[in-house]
């Protein structure tokens, strides 16, 4: 039977990894991911999880180790953040190109320097083109659920791709929330044993991660890109069947009081909950604002987002990272591209918010939305954005 318990989100994530009955965890501790792997190492040491815990000497090694274990057919998990993800960068592309269904939690954190252990999305945005399926979760329950969903989708033979669950560091990873945990029997119904498409086996030797000449590389990349795009159908099925099991329905894009709103706020991750409070308050004051939440980042749910943004004349796009020197910031760039041929084209207000753990309050969202309400909707200059809260 499912039970509802109060628990730190990181611990709940580890419990989900345990329920997924992983074979290998290879990880290097880094704030704010630490509690996840600490708890996993305890579970392994106490005999509660029959898995190999590989204490590697760096994140580069952690990712390399799970590439090896996944290639050998073992269900493999790792977690990291910030500099750790940056150190993995090289191997991330290898894991996706080799089509290894590793699942990784990234407890999103700012990048150095200056050293900051606090939350933003600079880490994942620097690795966003790594070819992994990428989810952004909003609360503890979503985090727990998505470990199971991510394995289920990643290991589907039609997908066979790794997946990252982005979970905001501290503001989500370290809070205590109520979680409805699944039991082993429920998980067994949802998550079948891992049957790799191909694996390292001395009796049936194959070569993995080989080199490719120019006549060949292009086709490999096309196949990889098609697999990531086509994974969307399997992700939707994974969510649907999860809903049948638990009653909790997830979607690539979710809306909150968005119907007919003059201004829509687009958010990802834990900020969505704070933003929804601002929307409630402003709706009570009769203001026409709504919220759109992007849960799936890769493959990018273009059609869903286009529909969710609907006829809104003004869209506030939140970015949690700066794309230095770029025409615009990562999320705004996607949205601007998506709406290029919308008729009429809405105005995009790009707001970079909460960098390096700068607090984001309900009042901040109210101020941003009020400002957008007061502006006209003629498209503004490309690349204009505001750095919310910066001292001028």
């Amino acid at each position, binding site marked *: 039977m499912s039970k509802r318990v109060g628990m730190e989100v990181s611990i709940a994530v580890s419990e989900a990894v345990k329920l997924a009955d992983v074979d290998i965890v290879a990880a290097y501790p880094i704030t704010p991911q630490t509690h996840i792997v600490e708890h996993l190492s305890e579970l392994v040491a106490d005999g509660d999880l029959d898995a190999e815990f590989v204490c590697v000497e760096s994140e580069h090694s952690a990712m390399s180790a799970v590439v090896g274990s996944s290639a050998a057919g073992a269900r493999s998990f790792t977690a990291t953040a910030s500099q750790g993800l940056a150190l993995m960068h090289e191997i991330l592309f290898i894991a996706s*190109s*080799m*089509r*290894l269904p590793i699942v990784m939690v990234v407890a999103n954190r700012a990048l150095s320097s200056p050293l900051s252990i606090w939350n933003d999305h600079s880490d994942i945005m620097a690795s966003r083109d790594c070819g992994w399926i990428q989810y952004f979760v909003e609360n503890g329950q979503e985090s727990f659920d998505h470990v199971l969903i991510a394995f289920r989708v990643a290991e589907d033979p039609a997908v*066979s791709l790794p997946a990252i669950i982005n979970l905001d560091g501290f503001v989500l990873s370290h809070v205590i929330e109520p979680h409805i945990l699944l039991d082993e029997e429920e998980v067994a119904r949802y998550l079948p044993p891992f049957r790799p*498409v*191909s694996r390292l086996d001395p009796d049936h*030797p*194959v*070569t*993995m991660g*080989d080199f*490719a*000449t120019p*006549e*060949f590389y*292009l*086709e*490999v990349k*096309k*196949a990889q890109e*098609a*697999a990531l795009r086509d994974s969307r159908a399997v992700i939707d099925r994974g969510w649907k069947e999860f809903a049948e099991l638990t009653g909790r329905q997830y979607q690539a894009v979710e809306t909150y009081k968005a119907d007919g709103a003059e201004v829509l706020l687009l958010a990802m991750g834990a900020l969505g909950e704070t933003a929804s409070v601002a929307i409630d308050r402003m709706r009570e004051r009769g203001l026409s604002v709504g919220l759109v939440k992007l849960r799936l980042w890769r493959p990018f749910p273009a059609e869903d987002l286009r529909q969710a943004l609907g006829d809104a004349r003004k869209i506030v796009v939140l970015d949690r990272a700066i794309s230095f020197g770029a025409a615009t910031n990562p999320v705004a760039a996607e949205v601007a591209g998506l709406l290029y041929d919308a008729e009429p084209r809405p105005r995009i207000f790009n707001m970079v918010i909460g960098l390096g753990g700068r607090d984001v309050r309900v009042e901040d969202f109210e101020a941003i939305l009020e400002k957008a309400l007061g502006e006209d909707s003629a498209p503004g200059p490309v690349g204009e954005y505001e750095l919310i809260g910066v001292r001028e």
Partner: protein
Amino acid sequence: MTSKEKTWTWRDIPVGAVVEEPGNASEYLTGGWRSERPVFTPDHCVQCGLCYVYCPDAAIVMTREGYPDIRLDYCKGCGICARECFMSTFGLSCFEMVDEEEFR
């Protein structure tokens, strides 16, 4: 990569570009890259096999008699065997690197 694979479309690529035919790199002849050829003289060879170990292309096989035999279809002419030959310690390397032009 073999000639068969050259006609593959992206749909034909095995998942993860796994090479399902182990050892098919043998069909890829790299000898044509060579500008210098190692020429072996057995006079001082002590049959230690170091050259076999060091060759980065596995282009050296050891004969039944214990001497190196260079597979010129694969040898890229890097000269590592000539340098790492045990006897080169005494200035008596068993390999001499000879300009490929000489064999034309």
